[in-house]
């Protein structure tokens, strides 16, 4: 992939907590090891993370609490200072950035949705949504008009004059989402946006989120501790463990080739037919394959009934219509019930 299309670039990003973190900038990469950290009583929240996020993709950072995912996203937004390494948003390096420039980036290019919503209790729904424009000094009429558009977009029609405490949790997060879209940012950070919601509402909000992204096409960095949520919405997933990024891959890639036992443990419980797509299951074409081909991007869950009811392998075609292989009943059964040998 060409480097120009990546909009966020982390280069050996470290975030350390403890006394004397500045001194670590002068060390070589090899010197900054566990022994050094222990003797200097430094706690690494993020360790040596290098990754690129492409324009327009949904990039999910997945990890359990304490894995460093929240800190990493706060490095990306400048909410915490990166201790070491380069943290680039477009052409701006956030490491050591000037405060004014950072304010400017936040006002125009990036925005964030918070786990606990962070709605201002003294403002109405509409004023909350319009808040980022108010900070920029936009006129009242202009910002309220824009806020009304967004309230409609996220389905808050008729609730514009409520106060946050008069809304349910799901509705409150809709306000948070609308507010983060007010300035039409390029990059949209969502920090565990649905973790505080009930499972049913969470599912509904994930659908809503995918629907929004279908029309907005933002670059999205999405934090979650829920692997199922991650595979449901992600283009690519970075799995973090003890401050390190252990693996970056597509949901399928993680399931097919987990980098280590830690990742495998997550993928083990995931129903495969909800993740695997026809393309990655297709075997070399045999003459036996017959019937209309299925799309390579189709989820196994959607095509399984047809394959299972057919005696012969079903052909798989890519988006140009070229047949790239076929899937038979045995493969479907092995994928769904098998233990990994696909």
């Amino acid at each position, binding site marked *: 992939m060409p480097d120009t299309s990546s909009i966020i670039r982390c280069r050996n990003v470290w975030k350390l907590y403890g006394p004397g973190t500045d001194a670590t900038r002068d060390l070589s990469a090899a010197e900054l090891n566990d022994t050094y950290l222990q003797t200097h009583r430094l706690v690494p929240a993020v360790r040596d993370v290098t990754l690129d996020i492409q324009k327009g993709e949904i990039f999910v950072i997945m990890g359990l609490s304490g894995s460093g995912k929240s800190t990493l996203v706060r490095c990306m937004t400048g909410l915490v200072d990166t201790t070491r390494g380069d943290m680039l948003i477009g052409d701006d390096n956030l490491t050591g950035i000037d405060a004014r420039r950072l304010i400017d980036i936040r006002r125009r290019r990036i925005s964030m949705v918070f786990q606990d919503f962070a709605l201002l209790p003294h403002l109405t729904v509409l004023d909350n949504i319009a808040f980022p424009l108010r900070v920029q000094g936009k006129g009242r009429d202009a910002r309220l008009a824009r806020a009304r558009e967004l309230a409609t977009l996220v389905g808050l029609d008729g609730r514009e*004059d409520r106060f946050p405490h008069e809304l349910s949790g799901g509705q409150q997060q809709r306000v948070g989402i609308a507010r983060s879209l007010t300035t039409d940012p390029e990059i949209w950070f969502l920090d565990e946006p649905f973790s505080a919601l009930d499972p049913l509402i969470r599912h509904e909000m994930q659908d809503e989120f995918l629907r929004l992204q279908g029309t907005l096409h933002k670059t999205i960095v999405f934090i979650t501790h829920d692997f199922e949520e991650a595979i449901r919405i992600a283009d690519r997933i970075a799995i973090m463990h003890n401050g390190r990024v252990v693996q970056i891959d597509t949901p399928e890639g993680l399931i097919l080739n987990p980098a280590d036992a830690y990742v495998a443990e997550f993928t083990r419980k995931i129903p495969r037919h909800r993740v695997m797509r026809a393309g990655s299951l297709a075997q070399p074409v045999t003459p036996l394959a017959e019937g209309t081909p299925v799309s390579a991007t189709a989820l196994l869950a959607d095509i399984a009934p047809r394959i299972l009811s057919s005696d012969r392998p079903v052909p798989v075609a890519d988006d140009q219509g070229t047949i790239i292989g076929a899937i038979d009943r045995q493969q479907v059964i092995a994928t769904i019930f098998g233990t990994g040998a696909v």
Partner: protein
Amino acid sequence: MSSTILRRPQVLIASAVRSPKSLIVVLGVILVISLFPALRETLPDWAVRLPKAWLPDLAGPINRFFVWLSRKAEIGPLRVKDISRGLAAVIEMPLSLVQGLLVTGLELPLPLRKGLQLNALPWWALTAALTIFGHWVAGRRAAALVLASCLYFLGLNLWDEAMLTLASVGIAVIIGTILGVLLGSAAHRWPQLDLVLNPTYDVMQTLPVFSYLVPIILFFGFGPVAALIATVIYAMPPMARNTTLALRRLPTSVGELASMSGCSPRQRLLLVLLPAARQGLLTGFNQLVMLSLSAAIIAAVIGAGGLGNVVLQGLKSMQLGRAFEAGLGITLMAIVLDRLSRAFALRRPSHGTKMTGWRRHPELFCGLGILALGFVAAQVAPMTRDFPAVLTGSSGRMLDDFFTWVNVSFAGPIGALRDGFVRHLFRPTKDALLSLPWMAVVLLVALAAHQVRGIGLALATTAMLSFIAITGYWDMAMTSLYLVTISVVIAVLIGFPIGVLAAQNPRLGQATALVTDTLQTLPSFVYLIPVVMLFGLGDFPAMVAIVAFALPPAIRYPMDGIARVPQSLTEAADMAGCTRFQRLIHVQIPCALPEIMLGLSQTILMAFGMLVITALVGTRGLEQETLIAVSKAKVGEGLIAGLGISFLSIIADRLITHGSARLRRRLGQV
């Protein structure tokens, strides 16, 4: 055994610190040595009391310094005296404007001619407007309360005094809010400021009001401005502290939201942090209002006028009826102000008010309209300003006679009660405390401090107690301490069982909460009135007043603490087959113990707060010294004695709150 201890104290202290058992032994030995005269003889004299010759003269230099500072000192081209005069003029402007509007009338300076005389607002306009504002802020019942209070003041001819007090409270609250929010936000922005501000607030809040009245009089003269400054000093710290606390308690995401929206530092504070922390700020505001009233009343001592002055004159001339009427008026005003400022804090915005301007707040504009109308009416027809004299009256004589009758007919039992307390409780306690060698007290407190917190607190308590000894106020400090100790013990003996009972029974609990909340709003000064009426002057009425004032926290903390014990725990106790009593003893009280201890510390702080005022009824400890300092304008004596009281209460508070925190950690309630 005692000689071993004297020879090798370090060893014993070290072992005491290690194990609680040997600590108790050491404490016991110290007590025995201290209390038995024969053993005390073995101690060197300086360990019992520092000889007079050793004591440095601290008060003299402080007095000379303050006189120099207030008369001669210069900062650059300006004399301090001129600065303080200028400041006084700036503060006086709004104060005299409000007082003029409410009571005294205004004189507008006009060029060429004599100033234009404007009359103050008439009673009917103020009464109507205040009632409407009451309705706007807190609803119908509060409005009725406001109206009733106004009528009370009018009918008993206390209107002008009440309005003067209201004016001082109003201006003090405005200044206190601005200062408090500024200082509180600064401490949030720069946490290092805590190192300076926290101890300063501690001292400001515990220093007896009389001891800082003297320097204020030196700088600002005798009168309302000095009173106002004293009021702000007394009432502002909780506003600042609550501001900082509320800002620190905000979820981190609120601050992050401000950053992510691209707020400038000013926008961050004004648009995001302060509004989001509104609830906490208003808690501080409520405390600010109540303490301002309390201080504005006490400030009568330095010529603030108003209701406090009526009480003070009444107490001085033994016209108790008038003092009682004014005291009841203060009580009414306290309840009203508390209601209104609390309602303000609890109000949450709600949707459906799309209207703007006067239609959104019709009551506000209506009230302002009535005030404007009244102002015009007062100029055109001045006779409408005053409440018709025929409708006013005072029960003064009647009440006086009643109290005389009570005193005469119950002189026997009341006297017997008082004498019994004095003979069997007061004197023995006082003698015991006075007989303790000061070194023994310092050592005991330091050991306790080390146990609950560590070496830092032990050093701090040692320094504070040594200060009291070195300044030569040790005996007076013990005299203060004995009265507080007895009062606190009695308050706890009364309060704890009530609190426990109230926690078991929801209806009793509600009633208790209502009573204690009301008692807590009353300014300390008010408590002196009935006590003096019934018991006259001296330590016994002082003790009764202190107990009454310190009782609310002694009831509330155990009650709330027990009520807050998680339901699952009480259910587990029930399922284990506990009787109600067992449940209380084995589950509820142990779990609520940290809270109960905090209640004890609050009770002690309140007791010291009241002790300071009891100087007016003739107690003899440090508090008396601060009151004498006011009348003789001796800054040094007043400040040193005041610091003594301040230190005693800070020590008691620190020991208990740290003990409570330790317990909380052990119970895993962090």
